[in-house]
């Protein structure tokens, strides 16, 4: 299959309660409390996932895994605006030991390691620092992994392991300055309250280089779209690493450790590795490819007001709209093609909410009868454009091929 299979809306069907055959079929794919199914259209399947409202502080989500929770945003949510509602932003935990009770008065964040003064900050201490607010896309490294061909193991996401929010918090730089980073610091490692299920398994931690940590943009957020974070999105404090994949955005942050050497722990040194090639692309089975830790995001764009297969009226002026983001840079342009990529038309861009945010795009078409294909591509401010062919790597990371939506016109 080609890039044309890349876009698919979840579609739902009502659970047929009372019909034994339907119940039997559903019990194979869904816990008893899940009521409807979404279809992610993954090549070769399985594509059906339950839709659920069973998770605390979350609305309707696509259930990828109950424990540890993996919840995907239904794609329809991205048509409602550039900011993803808190109760529908995706959820991804590595380990299942997650505190279900957080007391704000006793919560502490340790700042330790290669610093002059080790700190134990209360939330009040943290919130007394100068505040910043920043719109930024939070996207899983493996968003859209389910569309990889050949398929790869992992969380089999559609396109909804991403979301955009206004993050309110304080600069990591200010927190580090309060502790006083010693000369020779190389990186900063972050850990949260989540723990592995079994002894000896690697606790989830991630680190970034010291200069990155002190760039004034990396922040500790306590606000998300004007409210405190849902527990499953990292309450009370989440690390925000604008322009970088979500794996670095450590949730329930309680440990900040400055290191004077490289971080050799599993999740930074061995996991989340991508081929060191343009677009993190390699051939299946290719040997001796240099691997590096995943880092900056790349541009993507999507149609949000039609799902593949929806019927349009021939000759009728038809609005097309969607979202785009530039990855680690702002959106420079979004272009639409309805002739298979031969010619491209600039779409109109919506309000600029900042270089790390989703940005809405819109245009109008008058489709002729037949089978219409709509392709959309984003170019970011660094001049990087989405590729026409999908990338591949064994972990299913960094998909950003041009999306194509098929729409019959009559």
């Amino acid at each position, binding site marked *: 299959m080609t890039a044309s299979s890349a876009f698919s809306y979840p579609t739902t069907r009502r659970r047929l309660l009372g019909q034994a055959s339907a119940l039997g079929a559903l019990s*194979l*794919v*869904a*816990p*008893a*409390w899940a009521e409807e199914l979404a279809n992610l259209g*993954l090549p*070769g399947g*399985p594509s059906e*996932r339950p839709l*659920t409202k*069973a*998770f*605390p*502080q979350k609305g309707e989500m696509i*259930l*990828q*895994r*109950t*424990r540890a*929770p993996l919840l995907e945003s239904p794609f329809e949510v991205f048509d409602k605006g550039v900011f993803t509602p808190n109760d529908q932003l995706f959820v991804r935990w590595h*380990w*299942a030991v997650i505190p*279900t*009770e*957080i*007391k*704000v*008065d006793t919560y502490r964040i340790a700042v330790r390691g290669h610093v002059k003064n080790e700190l134990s900050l209360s*939330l009040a201490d943290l*919130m007394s620092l*100068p*505040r*910043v*607010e*920043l*719109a930024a896309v939070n996207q899983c490294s493996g968003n859209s992994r389910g569309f990889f061909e050949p*398929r*790869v*193991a992992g*969380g*089999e996401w559609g396109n909804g392991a991403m979301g955009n929010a206004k993050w309110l918090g304080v*600069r990591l730089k200010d927190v580090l300055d309060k502790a006083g980073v010693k000369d020779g610091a190389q990186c900063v490692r972050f850990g949260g309250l989540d723990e*592995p*299920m*079994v*002894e*000896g398994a690697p606790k989830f931690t991630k680190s970034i280089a010291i200069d990155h940590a002190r760039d*004034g*943009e990396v*922040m500790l957020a*306590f*606000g998300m779209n004007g409210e*405190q974070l849902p*527990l499953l999105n990292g*309450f009370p404090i989440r690390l925000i690493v604008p322009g970088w994949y979500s794996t670095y955005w450590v949730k329930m942050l309680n440990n900040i450790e400055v290191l004077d050497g490289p971080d050799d722990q*599993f999740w930074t040194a061995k996991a989340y590795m991508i081929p060191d090639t343009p677009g993190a692309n390699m051939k299946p089975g290719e040997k001796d490819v240099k691997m590096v830790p995943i880092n900056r995001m790349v541009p993507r764009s999507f149609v949000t007001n039609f799902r593949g297969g929806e019927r349009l009226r021939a000759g009728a002026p038809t609005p097309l709209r969607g979202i785009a983001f530039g990855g680690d840079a702002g959106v420079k342009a979004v272009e639409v093609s309805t002739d298979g990529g031969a010619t491209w038309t600039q779409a109109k861009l919506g309000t600029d909410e*900042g*270089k*790390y945010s989703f940005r809405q795009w819109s245009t109008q078409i008058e489709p002729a009868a037949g089978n219409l294909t709509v392709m959309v591509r984003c170019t970011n401010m660094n001049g990087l454009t989405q590729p026409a062919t999908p990338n591949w790597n064994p972990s299913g990371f960094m998909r950003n091929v041009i999306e194509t939506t098929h729409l019959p016109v009559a």
Partner: protein
Amino acid sequence: MATLVRTFAFAIIAAFAVGSARATEVPPPFALKSISVELPTSDRTFPYGPGVAVMDANCLICHSAGMVLNQPALSKTAWDGIVHKMVKVYKAPIEEADIATIVDYLTATKGAK
């Protein structure tokens, strides 16, 4: 009002000068509230087949069944690699003798055709 608007416009200009983060001089009130929640549990087990009891006894320790059942069809080699990764890297407490049973189950139910 005019002053407020001017201040806001200045704040926007300043924000553009330093990037897209907007610093605020006086922190707006923002109070965090303690929370206590309950997470749902999964009642799913693995579909019947040879080795299903070993699957239920081992694979559900760390994650619910959906993680496995949502995987695409993979080769026996791929499943063998995944099960060994669970043991070696993620420290799944699986008896050596059960590894082959689990790989066979996965290959039978989720194997590449």
